[in-house]
């Protein structure tokens, strides 16, 4: 039986859930070690830094950390076998993240807005790296 993570309870928590999924994807992509691995490594380092900052901000804001799913077992992460399809998935994740973080930054508190905006700008640069 599979257990499902509790639904996100705030905008920040929603971003954390999505970031966790994307980190899992790109970590699995790095483990695949295909021709794009150097680009995936670069992206993984940034996305892990984002996760750390988001978790710190969640703690600062008094959010419930107990509902946040842990990093997945890389071997169990479902990613495409084909390198081109995997690249498309990681690129799509970056696009989704840019949209989500941009939208959230527009209405967040000033401190959170700066954090979310920097992450949005970073994932936009990932799209450039993956183009």
């Amino acid at each position, binding site marked *: 039986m599979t257990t499902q993570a509790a639904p996100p309870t705030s905008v920040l928590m929603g971003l954390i859930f999505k970031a966790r999924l994307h980190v899992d994807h790109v970590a699995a992509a790095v483990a695949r070690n295909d021709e794009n691995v150097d680009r995936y490594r670069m992206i993984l*380092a*940034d996305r892990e830094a984002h996760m750390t900052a988001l978790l710190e901000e969640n703690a600062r804001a008094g959010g419930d950390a107990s509902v946040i799913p842990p990093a997945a077992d890389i071997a169990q992460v479902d990613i495409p076998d084909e390198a081109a399809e995997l690249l498309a998935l990681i690129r799509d994740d970056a696009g989704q993240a*840019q949209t989500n973080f941009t939208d959230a930054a527009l209405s967040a508190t000033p401190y959170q*807005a700066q954090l979310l905006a920097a*992450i949005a*700008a*970073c994932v936009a640069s990932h799209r450039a790296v993956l183009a």
Partner: protein
Amino acid sequence: MSQDIAAAAPDGDTLIAALNAAMAAEHVALWAYGLVTAFDPDAATDVTAFVGNHQALRNVVADLLVRAGAVPVSPEPAYDLPFEVTDPHSAQTLALTIESDCAGAWHGIIGATTDSDIRAEALSALTGCSIRMVTWRRYRGDTSLTEPFPGTTTITP
């Protein structure tokens, strides 16, 4: 977009200062890109495009300032460089520094206002800087092309 821009910040002076910091950064960018072209002619096509980007950003921030009832800072005749530019590599580093400085200025606006329209303009500008930084890191042959929090770090040559 809000007509009362100065009122969009808890402290209107903070927003005006942030907008003028971006204005100043854009003036520097437009001046310094002239040097980049001189020392790295192979990058001329990108420089032309990026100068167009920064001209547009300068006009955006000037408009925001005027609508806030503030006076945009004027460009200086010339600027001191943070390091000597003598060859393509140092010109590329200057370009990276320009973009990083502009990113920092636009990032500052996001924290200085609650107006979502101004934030959207600033975030769009920050994103553009972040993408142009990838271009300059590619020119430099950097191993790492991105940074996790653009607008919050300083480039060192």
